[in-house]
């Protein structure tokens, strides 16, 4: 270093050192002053006490547009954008007059795939005065970020969090994404209906993915309820796509049924590799694979896999037809993934609740904080016709969805494109999961 080489005398050296240390202290003082003023300027400025009137009402969305979960975020962005457009063009409840005086704005912020980014995005949106929040994409992010709007009284609708305990974070936290505990057993039942002689089951799941681990334990329970224990359980990693080792290891146990709970692209690869390595039995996949994104990955090998769905593109209702039409306008011929339908639904339930409040004149001359509180109560009280089917909420904020579907993938002869052919529609009794 310069000090070590260019020192003709000790005095000069120590003088420079002293000067440097003095400089350090001065720099630190300036830094501390700067941090102090940032803290002062950034102290909690909750706009909750401002009157609501005079501005368009803003819905804030925090989804993963960067990082490892970005595929979900991009699918969610599609759902939210379509919902926003649909609301503008038609309005959800009544074609005319319903949106009278209610102008709605959607603000999407990237919540990344990690906890700090989701927290920052939530804070930003709350500070900007949104009336409600949609997001974040991952359950782990929700555990970190949801306590903030809960403390400040901002309603949150989660479009894709399926871990247990999310609505229990507090009064203001709700979700439209049904837990896998409700859905997953249906596809197991279908597989066993097709082949009651099944005894040997292999289970694969991505152990570092919150969604897959939760779902896999539901699968285990559903199997156990039928007296089956897996002959092998293979744990994979979320970012893994080459399953040569776990598959050959599982095939040594000669399974008659493979159950997998992994994310979409990895799942597509796992199906293809299972088939290529000679597995011929049935395959039941988790809800993470309920997206046409898997078609190009597992191609002709996708054929015949069974999946239980919280959303079926084949559902023939007015709202789903409208949703499909808008989706195709933007994204070509493929049907929308489940996660897109759920994002659409999150926007829809908030917009309809706001419409109802507007009609009751409950939004006149209130503060933002009061509007948020009223919106939450209205949200939980309502019933909704959504692309997912009819839904409503428990007082906790847990979604109650009564219609679920079991589909079988049928691929086109070319093996590049296919559809989730509806096998069975299940009307579950309305119990809270």
């Amino acid at each position: 270093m310069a000090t070590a080489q260019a020192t003709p005398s000790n005095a000069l050296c120590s003088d420079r050192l002293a000067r440097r240390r003095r400089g350090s202290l001065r720099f630190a003082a300036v830094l501390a002053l700067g941090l102090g003023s940032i803290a002062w300027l950034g102290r909690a400025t909750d706009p909750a006490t401002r009157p609501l009137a005079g501005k368009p009402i803003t819905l804030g969305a925090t989804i993963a547009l960067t990082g490892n979960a970005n595929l979900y975020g991009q699918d969610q962005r599609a759902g939210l954008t379509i919902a926003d457009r649909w609301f503008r063009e038609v309005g959800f409840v009544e074609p005319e007059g319903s949106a009278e005086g209610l102008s709605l704005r959607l603000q999407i912020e990237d919540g990344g795939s990690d906890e700090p980014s989701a927290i920052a995005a939530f804070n930003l949106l709350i500070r900007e005065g949104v009336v409600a929040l949609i997001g974040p994409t991952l359950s782990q992010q929700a555990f970190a970020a949801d306590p903030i709007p809960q403390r400040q009284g901002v309603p949150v609708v989660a479009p894709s969090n399926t871990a247990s305990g999310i609505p229990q974070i507090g009064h203001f936290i709700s979700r439209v994404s049904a837990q896998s505990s409700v859905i997953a057993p249906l596809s197991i039942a279908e597989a066993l209906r097709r082949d009651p002689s099944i005894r040997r089951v292999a289970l694969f799941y991505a152990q570092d993915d919150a969604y897959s681990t939760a779902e896999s334990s539901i699968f285990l329970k559903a199997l156990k309820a039928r007296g089956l224990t897996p002959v092998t359980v293979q744990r994979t990693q979320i970012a893994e796509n080459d399953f040569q080792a776990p598959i050959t290891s599982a095939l040594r146990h000669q399974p008659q049924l493979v159950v997998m709970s992994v994310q979409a692209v990895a799942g597509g690869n796992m199906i293809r590799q299972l088939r290529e390595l000679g597995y011929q039995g049935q395959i039941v996949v988790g809800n993470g694979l309920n997206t046409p994104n898997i078609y190009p990955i597992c191609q002709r090998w996708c054929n015949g896999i069974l999946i239980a769905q919280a959303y079926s593109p084949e559902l023939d209702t007015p709202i789903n037809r409208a949703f499909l039409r808008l989706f195709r306008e933007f994204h070509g011929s493929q049907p929308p993934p489940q996660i897109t339908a759920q994002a659409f639904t999150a926007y829809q339930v908030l917009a309809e609740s706001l419409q109802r409040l507007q009609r009751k004149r409950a939004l006149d001359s209130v503060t933002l904080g009061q509007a948020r509180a009223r919106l939450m109560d209205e949200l939980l009280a309502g019933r909704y016709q959504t692309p997912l089917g009819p839904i409503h909420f428990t007082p906790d904020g847990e979604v109650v969805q009564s219609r679920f579907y079991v589909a079988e993938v049928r691929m086109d002869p070319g093996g590049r494109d296919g559809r989730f052919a509806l096998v069975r529609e299940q009307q579950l009794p309305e119990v809270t999961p």
Partner: protein
Amino acid sequence: MIDNGLLVQMLLGALLGLSVYLPLSAGQLSLATPAFYAVGGTLAALLSTRWSALGATAAGSLPPASFLLVLILGGLLAGGLAVVVGQLVLRLRGIYLAISTIALVEIVRVAILNLPFTGGAVGIFSIPQPFSEAGGYLVPALAMLGLTAALCHRLETLPLGRAMGAIREDELAARCMGIDTTRVKLIAFVISAVVAGSTGALAAHFLNTWNARQGSFDVSVTTLAFVILGGSRTWLGPVAGGLLLTALPELLRPVGDVRLVVFGLVILLGPVIFPGGLVTTGLLERLGRSFVPRRHSASEVR
């Protein structure tokens, strides 16, 4: 623009920057900081949620004294681990040390994921809160940063700090001068781990939740970027780098989808434009000039 929540994250960034800086100031490129951060955070999350003696209420609040205790315990566990690991890895040099510490980070990550009591992929959530709002964390975060910074500043004049500097310049020469290099390196490594462990404990509470993803290879390289971009020759460098680089992605939100491209460009061009980092010794010397010009010239003459 910058709310108190983000400010807390920036302070945590600065602390992690210092944790990487400490071994580096003894010439050791250790990227183990996220491993100790993860260990500290996991311990804190476990203690605050499971250990009833800490006095967490059903409403989810935690007495400040218990919070302080958890911070200390997080640091101590990380430090203890560092004593063991340090004796093994500090024999390695340069890039071998760097990669073996990355290996440590990955092993710790997989361990936290697989241990039966750490909540698997979901992790530990609903961690009791010592403060009613995010701004409350400013006090402990600032205090920890102040303490660590004061320690680093003090080290510059202490024999230990001089020994660390000597090892950084030339380890062999330092050994020949009679410095117990093994011991000095280990001490720097352990202090770094204690800082990272306590930071993790604070972060676990601040984030409300903790899981294996918190300490990963990504964090290793980001924290190294704090030090390199901020300047690795003085403790103010990593502090400035940590504050700035943590805030940057948030400040870049107005540019939209390309914000991470811009962020990458800053990391790419930063060291090219500021070869010694943002805060260099030269800058500090200029800053430290006396305000009274007469005395200044007198000292030059003398």
